[in-house]
C-alpha cells in the first residue's frame, strides 16, 4: 500500500499520488458529462425559444431527459467525488483509504452513466430525469442509474474511510478543517440520498422487467424525490464547502466562527432531507400537516442554516480583507477584491445568485399554499438553474481554475477569457433564471414542447409577455451555453496544451499538519458591517417577494 506524496509548489498543498489521479479522472468524467449535457441544453433552449422551435417533439423530450440526467447527476456527482477526495486526503495530509476500491467505484459510475445515456439515445427512454411511473423506460435506463449510484456510494465510504485513516495515523491535530466538515456533511446526505434512490429504482427496474405489476405513483414521487431533491442538497453542502475553500485559498479567510459554521452544516444533516415534500405540495394523498412540517425542513431550520452561511462566507472575506487594511467605508473590502481572479468572481457570483435568486424563489415555491401558483411551471427550472447552475456549477467551475495548475499541473490558457468567463456564464444564467421564473409566474409549463399548442383542439393563448419571457430565455440561454462551452474548451485545451508546470517535491511520507502553539493572545477583533448591510438587503428582498406572492395567491379562485 505504499504511495507517495507530492507537495505542490504553487499552493503548498500535499497530494497523495493515488488520490490525485482519482481526483483528476473524476473531474474529467464530470466535465465530459457537462459537455454532453451542455449540447443537449442547446437543443432544449432552442426549442423552447418560440421563434426558433428547433427540434421535433420526440427529439426535444429525448434531449431534455439527457440534459437533466447528465447535468443533475453525472456532472455534479463525478465532480463531487473529486471534492470528497480532495477534502479528505489532501486537506488532512493523509493517504486515501483503499484506492483500488475507489477505482471500482469510479468505473461503476462511468459504466452506469454510459449505460443510461445509451438507453436515452436509443430513443425509448424519454421519461425525463424524474422517470415518473407509470411511464416506462427501458430496463438499462434504471440499471445505469443504479450502477452509478452504487459507485458513488463506494466513493462516499472511501471518503469516510480516509477520515478514519487520518485520525488513526495522526496526520492532523485538533478538529478536521471546516471545508472537510462541509464535505462530510455532503457525504452523509449523499448516503441517505443514494439509499433512497436504491429503494425506489430497484423496484422500478424490476417493474420494467415485468417482475412487479405496479408501482404506486404517490409512493414513487415521495421516495424518488428523497433521492432527486436530496441529491441537490449534496450539492448545497458541497458548494458551500467550496465557497469556504475558495475564500480560504484566495484571501486566507478564516471562518468568523467555527462553532456557527459547523452548527449550520449540522442543521443541513438534520433537516435537508425532508425536502422531498417540496415536490408533493400540490399532490393528493399526503396531508397538510406532513406537507407543512416537511416542506419547511421542520420550521425552516435548513433555510436558517443557508442564511447563516450566506453571511459567514462573505463575512470571513470581509474580515480577511479588513485585516489587510481595506478598511475604508462599508465596502472597500469588496471593491478591492480580486474581481479579475476567476476563482473568486465565480464563487462570489455563485453565492449572490444562489441566495437572491435560488434561495428566495426556493422558499417561496416550497411554501405549501404558494406552491399551487408554480407547481410544474417553468418557474421550477428557473429556480433550480439558480441553485444548481449558479450555485453549484459556477462554484465548481471557479474551483477548477484553481485546480488546473495545482492538481493538473498545467497553466490555464487564455487568461483573458478566464477573467471574463464567470461573468459571461454567471450573469447570463442569472438572466435565464429570472426570465424563466417570470414565464412561470405567468403559468408557462415546464417540460412542454410547444407553448402554441399546435394541433390541440382547444389551444390556450398565452399572453404576449409569456412569449417575450420565453424568447428572452432562449437568448440568455444561448449566451450561457457560449459561456459554459467556452469554459469547457478552455479547461480541455489547458489540460492538453497548457504549459506543464513543475511537479514539486515528492516524498514517501506525508508531512503531518500541526497547530501553531497556543499563545492565548487573540488577533484583534474585526467587525463585518458591510456584510451585515448586504444581508439586510437580502432579507428585505426576501420578505417583499414572499408576501407579494401571498397577495397573488389570495386573488385566485377559492379552494378548500
Amino acid at each position, binding site marked *: 500500500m505504499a504511495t507517495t506524496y507530492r507537495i505542490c509548489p504553487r499552493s503548498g498543498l500535499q497530494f497523495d499520488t493515488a488520490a490525485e489521479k482519482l481526483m483528476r479522472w473524476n473531474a474529467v468524467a464530470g466535465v465530459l458529462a457537462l459537455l454532453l449535457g451542455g449540447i443537449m441544453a442547446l437543443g432544449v433552449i432552442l426549442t423552447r425559444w418560440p421563434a426558433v422551435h428547433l427540434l421535433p417533439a420526440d427529439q426535444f423530450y429525448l434531449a431534455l431527459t439527457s440534459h437533466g440526467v447528465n447535468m443533475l447527476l453525472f456532472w455534479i456527482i463525478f465532480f463531487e467525488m473529486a471534492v470528497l477526495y480532495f477534502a479528505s486526503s489532501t486537506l488532512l495530509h493523509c493517504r486515501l483509504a483503499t484506492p483500488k476500491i475507489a477505482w471500482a467505484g469510479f468505473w461503476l459510475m462511468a459504466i452506469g452513466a454510459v449505460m443510461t445515456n445509451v438507453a436515452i439515445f436509443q430513443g425509448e427512454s424519454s421519461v425525463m430525469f424524474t422517470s415518473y411511473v407509470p411511464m416506462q423506460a427501458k430496463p438499462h435506463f434504471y440499471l445505469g442509474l443504479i450502477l452509478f449510484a452504487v459507485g458513488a456510494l463506494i466513493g462516499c465510504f472511501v471518503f469516510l474511510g480516509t477520515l478514519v485513516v487520518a485520525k488513526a495515523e495522526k496526520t492532523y491535530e485538533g478538529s478536521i478543517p471546516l471545508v472537510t466538515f462541509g464535505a462530510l456533511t455532503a457525504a452523509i446526505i449523499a448516503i441517505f440520498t443514494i439509499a433512497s434512490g436504491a429503494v425506489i429504482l430497484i423496484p422500478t427496474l424490476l417493474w420494467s422487467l415485468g417482475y412487479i405489476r405496479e408501482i404506486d405513483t404517490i409512493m414513487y414521487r415521495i421516495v424518488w424525490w428523497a433521492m432527486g431533491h436530496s441529491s441537490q442538497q449534496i450539492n448545497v453542502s458541497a458548494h458551500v464547502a467550496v465557497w469556504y475553500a475558495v475564500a480560504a485559498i484566495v484571501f486566507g479567510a478564516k471562518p468568523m466562527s467555527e462553532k456557527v459554521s459547523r452548527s449550520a452544516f449540522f442543521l443541513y444533516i438534520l433537516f435537508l432531507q425532508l425536502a422531498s415534500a417540496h415536490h408533493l405540495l400540490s399532490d393528493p394523498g399526503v396531508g397538510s400537516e406532513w406537507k407543512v412540517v416537511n416542506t419547511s425542513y421542520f420550521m425552516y431550520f435548513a433555510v436558517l442554516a443557508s442564511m447563516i452561511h450566506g453571511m459567514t462566507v462573505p463575512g470571513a472575506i470581509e474580515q480577511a480583507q479588513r485585516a489587510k487594511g481595506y478598511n475604508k467605508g462599508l465596502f472597500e473590502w469588496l471593491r478591492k477584491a480580486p474581481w479579475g481572479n476567476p476563482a473568486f468572481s465565480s464563487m462570489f457570483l455563485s453565492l449572490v445568485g444562489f441566495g437572491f435568486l435560488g434561495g428566495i424563489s426556493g422558499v417561496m415555491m416550497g411554501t405549501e399554499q404558494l406552491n399551487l401558483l408554480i407547481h410544474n411551471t417553468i418557474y421550477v427550472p428557473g429556480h433550480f438553474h439558480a441553485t444548481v447552475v449558479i450555485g453549484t456549477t459556477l462554484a465548481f467551475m471557479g474551483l477548477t481554475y484553481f485546480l488546473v495548475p495545482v492538481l493538473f499541473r498545467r497553466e490555464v490558457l487564455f487568461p483573458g477569457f478566464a477573467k471574463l468567463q464567470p461573468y459571461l456564464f454567471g450573469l447570463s444564467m442569472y438572466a435565464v433564471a429570472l426570465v424563466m421564473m417570470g414565464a412561470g409566474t405567468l*403559468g408557462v409549463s415546464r417540460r412542454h414542447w410547444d407553448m402554441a399548442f399546435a394541433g390541440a383542439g382547444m389551444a390556450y393563448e398565452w399572453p404576449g409577455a409569456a412569449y417575450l419571457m420565453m424568447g428572452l430565455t432562449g437568448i440568455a440561454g444561448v449566451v450561457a451555453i457560449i459561456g459554459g462551452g467556452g469554459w469547457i474548451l478552455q479547461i480541455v485545451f489547458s489540460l492538453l496544451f497548457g504549459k506543464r508546470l513543475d511537479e514539486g517535491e515528492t516524498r514517501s511520507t506525508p508531512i503531518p499538519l500541526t497547530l501553531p502553539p497556543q499563545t492565548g493572545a487573540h488577533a484583534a477583533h474585526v467587525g463585518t458591517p458591510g456584510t451585515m448591510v448586504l444581508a439586510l438587503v437580502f432579507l428585505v428582498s426576501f420578505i417583499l417577494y414572499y408576501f407579494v406572492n401571498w397577495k397573488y395567491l389570495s386573488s385566485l379562485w377559492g379552494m378548500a
Partner: protein
Amino acid sequence: MSAISPPAERIWWKQPIDKLEFIWIAIAFVWSLVMFVMMVYWHIAGGQNLSNETYKTTKEMFAAKTQAVVDKYTVRTGTDAEKQFPVVKPPAGSDIYLIGRLWDWWPIYELEKGKTYKLHLSAMDYMHGFSLQPQNINIQVHPNYEHVVKITPNQSGTYSIVCNEYCGIGHHTMVGRIYVK
C-alpha cells in the same frame, strides 16, 4: 489557519460569537418562524388551501362516475372547436368529475361564478398536471387516486386547463376547458 486547515483554537466551540453574526442568526431565526406560521395561519384564515380529501379508485370506477355526471347534466354537445365534447352544467354545490387522459381533459364544464363545486380529479393512464389558465392554479393528477378539491370560481370567463405534467409525445395538445358564467 483558515477554513481549509484545522481550527487554530483547539477548543473552538468555546470561542465567542461575533455580535453582528449573532444578530443575523437571531433575525434569520425569527423570519424562519414567521414563514412557518404563515402556512398554518393560511389554513385557518386563507381562502386558497389544497384539499387533503383523497380516495383510492380505479380507472373504471372513476370513468363510470364521470359518465354519470355527464349523462345527467350535459346541456349541449360541443362545437368542433370544443372537440365535440359534452358541455356539462352541473348545479351549484354538486360533485363534478374531470378525467385526465392521453391527451384530453374530459368533459367541458360550465360553472357559475361565486358558487362552490367539489371537483374530483383523476388520471386514466399516466400522471397529468391540472394547470388552470389564466388563473395559474396547478395540481398534480395521479391515476388510481381520486382527489376532491372544493373550488369557487371568483371571475367569469373562459378558462383553459393545460396539462403540465409530461405525458408523452402529444403532451402539448392536452388542453381542456371550463366556462364560468
